[in-house]
């Protein structure tokens, strides 16, 4: 089951206003795995993620989700593709005028025929899964940065999508909450076969959950493999520096 490709990125080049950030990136994500996009700050993790979900028109290349190209998809194809994944943005992107529960219930309201009480209950269940059960009635501005993140994860999961894209889910969380989130991600992947694509540079969390990872550097993929394997057998100096948390200086030497 784990061999089936669910997302195929083919020779993707992307950037902003003509400035290429990623060039000719290709990799596959397999069904049910937790796939990590690693890379230093500014290496293009968020850019890659946003291009994979079709938020920006990539410069060239394609992103196939279950065989259909996300890049440039329009109309019914795009709708169908969008229903297959949930996204958590780096900043949370919760709607400020709605409570956490309303934020989570919004996709349910718009995309399902569930009755109101079912939506409310489901929103609460999702919030409880991320440990925010008792804060359902808070506005995002009344919560902390880490709580906003977790609520955003809950919102991304609201429709039980088969794929979840998370941009730095555990950055800014305390170790315990972060570990709980890791546990949740692993459980969802194990029990539901949900595929995760996670941009992260929290190494502890990456070792704990990552099945496979790519490391971005200079617009390309510096290494690919399981995080633990990359740490123990780094194929090049950059990878070693990254995993050993060595400063730039040591790498140049």
């Amino acid at each position, binding site marked *: 089951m784990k061999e089936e490709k669910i997302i195929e990125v083919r020779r993707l080049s992307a950037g902003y206003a003509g400035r290429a950030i990623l060039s000719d990136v290709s990799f596959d994500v397999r069904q049910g795995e937790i796939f990590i996009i690693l890379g230093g700050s500014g290496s293009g993790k968020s850019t890659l993620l946003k291009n994979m979900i079709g938020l920006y028109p990539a410069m060239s290349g394609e992103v196939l989700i279950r065989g259909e190209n996300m890049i440039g998809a329009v109309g019914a194809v795009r709708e169908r593709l969008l229903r297959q994944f949930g996204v958590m943005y780096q900043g949370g992107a919760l709607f*400020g005028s709605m409570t956490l529960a309303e934020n989570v219930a919004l996709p349910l309201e718009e995309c399902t025929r*569930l009755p109101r009480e079912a939506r409310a*209950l*489901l929103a609460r269940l999702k919030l409880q899964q991320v440990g925010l059960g*008792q804060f*359902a009635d808070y506005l995002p501005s009344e919560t902390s940065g880490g709580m906003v993140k977790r609520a955003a994860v809950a919102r991304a999961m609201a429709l*039980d999508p088969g794929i979840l894209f998370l941009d730095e889910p555990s950055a800014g969380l305390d170790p315990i909450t972060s570990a709980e989130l890791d546990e949740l991600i692993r459980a969802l992947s194990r029990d*539901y076969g949900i595929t995760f694509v996670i941009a992260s540079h929290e190494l502890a969390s990456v070792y704990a959950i990552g099945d496979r990872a790519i490391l971005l550097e200079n617009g390309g993929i510096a290494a690919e493999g399981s995080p633990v394997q990359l740490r123990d057998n780094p194929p090049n100096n950059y990878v070693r520096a990254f995993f050993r948390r060595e400063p730039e200086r040591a790498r140049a030497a």
Partner: protein
Amino acid sequence: MATDSAGQSAPLRVESSGSETILALSGTLDDAAVARCWSRALGAARTSQGPVRVDCARVDSCGGAGFALLVALAEMAEERKQSFVVDGLAPQFRSMYDGIDRSKLGQTETPQREKYGPVASVGQAVADRAAEWREETEFVGEVGVGLAGLGREPRRLRLREWWVMVEKAGTNALPIVALISFLMGMIMAFQAAMPMRQFGVDLFVVNLVALTITRELGPLMTAIVLAGRSGSAFAAEIGTMKVNEEVAALTTMGLSPVRFLAVPRVLAGIVVTPVLTVYSMAIGVAGGLAVMMLLGFPLATLMHQLSGSLRVDDVLAGLIKSFFFGAVVAGVGCLRGLQTGAGAAAVGDSTTRSVVTAIFLIVLLDAVFAVVYYQLKF
């Protein structure tokens, strides 16, 4: 995962054996399936005479909506003090289900928000207004001090950023100001020419248009256009900075948000508005003359009439006002921006407030000027 496989049999069968009610669920319990059987399942649980058993042996997969259904059924049974069991759930879903802590589900903290009764809210409104007055007075003072400071130390102005502000508020406003002024002049000349022709004094339309445009409408229209396009832009820009905590960052760096954000914008307003006003006056008068030419007056006659009637004082009177209008429009925009609360909606509110306040103050100021000019016979 969420797609509904059409043509599938109903995901719920209700049976009873003895006093026990059995709810047999089957297939994929995704949102579509649950939506179809939600009310029937809860209805059956509500009317059950004895224990409720949910048979999940034929459930292939259970999504969030399925768990919500199970939890709702459990709650219902608990409320009616009947025993409740879930049977046959596949182990991975079972562990998810067991992980749900129902006792905590109802426990939500209600966030502490300030709430006032009718009397208290009147008091609060007064207190808020008073605080705002104070803020606004301080703002005016600080902008004044900041402008004076720039006079002494012009190098503190970040020229490149300031120039962009001037360009946005000034240069880019030229087309719309021209259009509105020209039409204004035309409309006025046209409306006045008809009745005045009855008395044979239609040449004096030139006097009328020249006087009104230079003394009143030129400065007024320019200021209103500016309030709509630049004052509101200042409010939205600074408001967004406030929401993003950029204003807080300035404060902690020891920079005054008023001096850093408001003073250059107010200066831009003061510089740009008179220029736009003179431009608006010229085009407005031209609009009036254009109509008069269409009505058959030769240009030479019109120019003669114009130079005989228009005094430098009139233009000056309009110009002096426009300095104040510019300061008010830019100042109000910045002030409302800095007063922005939290969230995206707050930015919208402060933009609205900036335009409303600016237009109100412009009209008020105009009335004050009318009185002062009259007293001074200016």
